[in-house]
């Protein structure tokens, strides 16, 4: 760790480079995301934008450069420490990535259940609170397969928010949705 958590930006990329075989996908990429800032990353397909999220999560390591996330250098920390860091990060994937075998309630509670082991009244209150926020409290006991694509995306947002993460990572949160539903998702993000 090279910066204290308080002084560090949420994310810092310094001269990050990554290549697959002969294909250079990221070339000395540098940027910072300040605390409380929202940054939208654009680029055509193949520009390397989704790789930035994978690098920030420590899922892949760069060939060179430095990546600080919430004050920790994810290119250097041990895998065990990455688990702790990921606990402070909420992630919303394009495919929603809900567990099909779990109900909406269980999906949203998943990370809290991992920490506490049992589904208690406090977890139930928080699950209902975030589902109310995305206007889906009535879907508590439904399976993901019973939801529309937009509803699944809203459940994914609720699941990301329930731990009140310091950092949220969105991977194409409106990808594949119609314009009206896309606007609803953006409204939730705002």
């Amino acid at each position, binding site marked *: 760790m090279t910066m204290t958590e308080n002084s560090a930006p949420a994310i810092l990329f310094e001269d990050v480079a990554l290549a697959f075989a002969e294909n250079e996908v990221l070339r000395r990429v540098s940027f910072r995301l300040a605390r409380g*800032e929202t940054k*939208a990353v*654009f680029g055509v*397909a193949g520009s390397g934008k989704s790789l*930035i999220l994978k690098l920030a999560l420590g899922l892949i390591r760069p060939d060179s450069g430095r990546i600080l996330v919430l004050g920790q250098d994810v290119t250097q920390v041990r895998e065990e420490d990455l688990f702790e860091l990921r606990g402070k990060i*909420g992630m919303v994937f394009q495919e929603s990535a809900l567990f099909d075998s779990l109900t909406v309630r269980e999906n949203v509670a998943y990370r809290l259940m991992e920490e506490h082991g049992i589904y208690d009244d406090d977890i139930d209150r928080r699950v209902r609170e975030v589902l109310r926020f995305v206007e889906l409290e009535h879907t508590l006991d439904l399976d993901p397969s019973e939801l529309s694509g937009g509803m699944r995306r809203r459940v994914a947002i609720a699941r990301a928010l329930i731990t009140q993460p310091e950092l949220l990572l969105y991977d194409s*949160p409106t990808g594949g949705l119609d314009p009206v539903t896309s606007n609803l998702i*953006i409204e939730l993000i705002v």
Partner: protein
Amino acid sequence: MYKTSALMVTHRLQDAFTMATHQFDKETNRMVTLPPGRHCEGPMSFLILRDGKVIFDGDLQALARSEDEYIKEYIS
């Protein structure tokens, strides 16, 4: 709500423009359009990648003023 940082990968420019020009209104519990000239409460920025390189990193005003032909075409 708590204040958090967010990094959003997207291919939809309009999503980010909407985020930069709207804010959440607690009274109506809805997103409302900000008056012209006003921008969202939290800092909002845009980063554009091209061929693995960062070709833009700045706010909405800087993006709108960019003279880069690729960026102008991208946001048009």
